[in-house]
Each structure stands twice: as C-alpha cells, then as structure tokens.
C-alpha cells in the first residue's frame, strides 16, 4: 500500500519539515539573544515561536521514528523470539501502536482540537489561534497510523509465510 517511491517521498517530506523546524528553533533563540543583547530591543515573539516549533518538531519526529522504528523499547523478551512467534510479536506491537495513535493522538487530539478551535483560544504573544499548535496531534497521529499499518501488513505477510520472510531477511 505504501512502498517504494511513495514511502520514500513521505519519509523525505516529514524529514525535511522537521529539519526546517529545527533550524527555525536555532534561529529563533539566537535572534532572541541578539535582539536583547546587541539591539537592546528584546524580541517578544521568539520565545513562543520556539516553543511551538519544538512541539511540532517533537511530534512530527515521533511519527517519523515510528516509520524508522527507532523509538526506545526494552527488547529483553522480544529479541529472544524466533520464527512465527517473532512475527506474531511484531503484529502485536504494531497493532498496539496503531491503536494508541488512532485513539489517543487522532481521536483524542481531534476532540481537543475542536474545543480549542471553537473557543477561539489565542496564543498570548503572537495572538495566533492555539488550534494551529494542537493540529499537529491528529496530523502526527495519522502519519503514525500510516506507518504502523504498513509495518503491521508486512508482519502479517511474514507471519503467513515465515519461510519466505526468513529467506528475505537473509538476502538483505
């Protein structure tokens, strides 16, 4: 469903957005110091902009790391599993991540986003709608769902045909 060039395009897009946000973070805080110390006229929005960019970087980065399977886990038990048991465990892990992303990040995030949007909550310094910040929750949740579904389907395929999967893992 999401393989080859489409997968690479998605990875690339999220990676690029995160990279740009990280640069923005550095620029914001550096400008904050420069404007206060050199210009003697402290910038009044960089503090807020930096915090909001960090939230976006962290949550989009979270989805990205689900894609690259880099989140910290304790694989004491799972690393000892072999064959079909291993694939069953992968199905369980990816289904659980999918569940969390769908229910908490997408559903819970949308519930929150709708309330925040309807009450027209504005950020104190920049006076931008707070929904611009909270929207990263369902967005990152949806991307996490996408990645974990891809991994889930792969794990189910492997589970159904372990010999094939083992052969494939030896090739790579």
């Amino acid at each position, binding site marked *: 469903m999401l393989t080859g060039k489409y997968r690479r395009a998605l990875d690339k897009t999220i990676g690029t957005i995160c990279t740009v946000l*990280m640069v923005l973070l550095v620029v914001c*805080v550096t400008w904050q110091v420069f404007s206060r110390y050199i210009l003697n006229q402290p910038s009044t929005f960089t503090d807020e902009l930096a915090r909001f960019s960090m939230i976006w970087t962290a949550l989009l*980065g979270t989805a990205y790391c689900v894609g690259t399977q880099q989140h910290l886990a304790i694989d004491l038990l799972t690393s000892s599993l072999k064959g079909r048991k291993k694939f069953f465990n992968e199905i369980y892990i990816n289904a*659980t991540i999918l569940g*969390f992303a769908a229910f908490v990040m997408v559903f*819970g995030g949308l519930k929150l986003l709708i309330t925040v949007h309807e009450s027209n909550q504005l950020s104190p310094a920049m006076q931008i709608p707070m929904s611009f910040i909270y929207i*990263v929750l369902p967005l990152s949740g949806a991307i996490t769902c996408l990645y974990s579904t891809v991994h889930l389907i792969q794990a189910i395929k492997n589970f159904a045909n372990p010999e094939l999967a083992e052969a494939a893992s030896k090739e790579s």
Partner: protein
Amino acid sequence: MDWLVPAVLFGSFFFLVFTGIPIAFSLGISAVIAGGFILPVDVIMAIVSQKMVSGLDRFALLAIPFFILAGVLMNNGGIAHRLINLSQVLVGRMPGSLGHVNVMANMLFGSISGSSSAAAAAVGGTMGPLQKQAGFPPEYSAAINVTSCITGLLIPPSNVLIIYAVTAGGVSVATLFMAGYVPGILMGLSIMVMGAIISKKRGYPVSERPTLEHVIKVVLDAIPSLLLIFIVMGGILGGVFTATEASAIAVVYAFVLSVFVYGEIKMHDMPRIILDSVVTTAIVLVLVAVSIGMSWVMTRADIPYLITDSLLAMSESPLVLLLVINVILLIVGVFMDMTPALLIFTPIFLPVATEIGMDPVHFGIMMVVNLCIGLCTPPVGTALFVGCSVSGVKVQDLIGPMMPFFLSLLVCLALVTALPQLSLFLPSLFGLH
C-alpha cells in the same frame, strides 16, 4: 477501589514494556487504561493527547534539542576530537582516564546548562565514540555518562532547586544554590572513585606519557574548541543569555567552527546531521511529554498520597521516618520525572521533615539528590533515555554496568541525609544561613 488504579497503571505498563511496546507508547496506553477508571475514556484520551502537546510547552526544554544538535556537530566537526586529545594529555595517566573526563565534563556542562539531559546528550555524544575508540566498552561509558550527568542539577544554577524553593515557600534560592555545591561535587567524585576502582580491576587503558612538544601542539589545537565552553559559561555568567539560550548559542558556535573554521563538515552534510538530531530529540521529548500525562493520571488518582499515607503510618522515630521518606522518594523517582515529583512531594514531606527538626534547605538538597537517582532508572528516566539514545546502548544492557555507580550515589544520598553540614556548611560560611 483505592489500590485498583495504581495496580492497573503499573500492571499494564510493565506488561506492555516487557512485551516490546516502545516505552513512550507503553506509558501513554497505561495512562489511558488507568485513567479510564476515574474519567470517561474519551475524556482521558483527550487529556493524554493534550499533555503530549502542552507538556512540551516549556522554554527550558529547548535545551534538549539544542544540546543534542550541538553534540552531533561537535562529534562530526572535529571539536570533540580535539577536546578529548586535550583531556587525554591532562588526565590520561589516571586509571580509567576518559571516564573521569566524562564526569568532569558533565559537572561543568550540567552546572552551566542546569539540565541533566542536555549534559548527557552533549558530553555523552562526544565522549562515547572516543571512549569506544580508546577501548572502553560502550555500556561502561554510557553508565558513567548517565550517572554523572545529574550532578548539574545540584551544582548551580539549577532550575529544579528554584522549583523546590518556590514550592517549599520561605526557602532562599541563593542559600539553596550555595547548599548544592558540595553534594553535587561529592556525587561527581563518588562516580570517579567507583570508575577508577572498576577501571583498575578490569585494566582499562591508560595513555602513554606525552612529550612536551605533543602537549603544546594539542593544547594550541584545542583552544578554539575550548572557547565553546568559555563562550557558553562566560555568556551565562556575564548575563548575555540564559542557561536555556546558551544551548542555542552552543549550536551556532559549533556550526561555525566545524563548517567554516575546521571545514570538517560540508554544508551538504548538514541536513543529515540535523535530521539525526531531530530523531534523538523526538525520542526523548515524546517520552517527557507522555510521562507528564502519566503523572497527571497518578496525581488525579491520588496515588502519591496513597503510597505516602500507608508508608508513613509505620513509625514515629525521626531516623526511621527519614529512611522511609528516602525509600518512598527513590520509588517515586523510578516512575516520575523530577519536576512533577518535586511539585507533588515537597508539600507532603516538608512538614514531616520540619516536624522532626530537619532544616528545609537540607531537606530540599536531600530530595533533589534522591530524585536525581531516579532520573537514571527506567521506566521514567530522562537522563537514562538521553544517555541510551546518544550512545546507542540498549536500556536493559545499561542496567548492570550502572549498578556500581548507583551504589556510589546511594552512599552520597546517605551522607547528604545524615550530615546536614554537607549542605549547610557553605551557606553559613557565606552568611546565607
């Protein structure tokens, strides 16, 4: 009913973690399941998701991405390499030398940044590869890095001491800052002593006696890199920027030095380097965010009070009470981050402590030393997670190597608890107490 929620919370969490679910998701899911017993499920899902955003809405947390990025730049750009050459020349003859350098760097770095995770990221990210090159096992280096990065929370400036002062009410920040020096340095030294014992026993490498010519060359070569420390420290002490902002300045300086002065990083490498640090940042920050959600559920379910009430019912003797408080805090530190733990337990324990004649300054230092240990333990341990991400060592592989250092830290905790003078001597010397 009382114990149902904590049983569900911890039970589901351990089940999820040991069946291989990433720690961040395990925390979030167990918070939602346990929270489902006290609030409607759709509400608790919205709250946990809210905490994933608003838990990160703190300016001080910016130190984490910045020092991670600075660390990656220093590694790739030749800065770390030059600093390690220098430290090898300086303390290379001591057993387990690079470990000591790591501890000292953490004390220095943590003291200025006031953030254990920032120190673990910047120092560990730099020292780790070099220690590996020099023949130290990565697990050993990471264990030293994680257990020593917490010293910066005691050595001022320190935001957690301010949080304690404000929560305790009527405690002077200046006095607390003074009181933190000796315990903080003591913790660092105890790690170094343990490191020396282990290194000697296992025969970890000691470098050869360098020639004078070599020393001069290495020192000169290291000056621009050393300037980074001077710029960061000088900038903070000189009032140019705050400790949090200093982390961004460190990035800018490391970037300029690596790309334009040393030329060891090419501009086209930058996107990859930045993306690397985004990955580490996201792994750490999502853990911070979700653990704030988990402690919200704990607080809302009155779990802190539940544990405290049942344990404090045990005795009236001051010594036993102090022991019980320390044991509770050690357990709390296992599951909770420093800030929520301070906010929740200071008002609970401080009255007990003053009742048995303990000084609030002494008590605050004891509490912070205690909770510092918790920062190095799974499942909720920011310092541990950062240390693991920058070194690539797995959490479970780090537990064993960290054990001797935990012992050192527990000895420090016992000393800080039993000897008020360790905390109060400096403040009274400077007329602050």
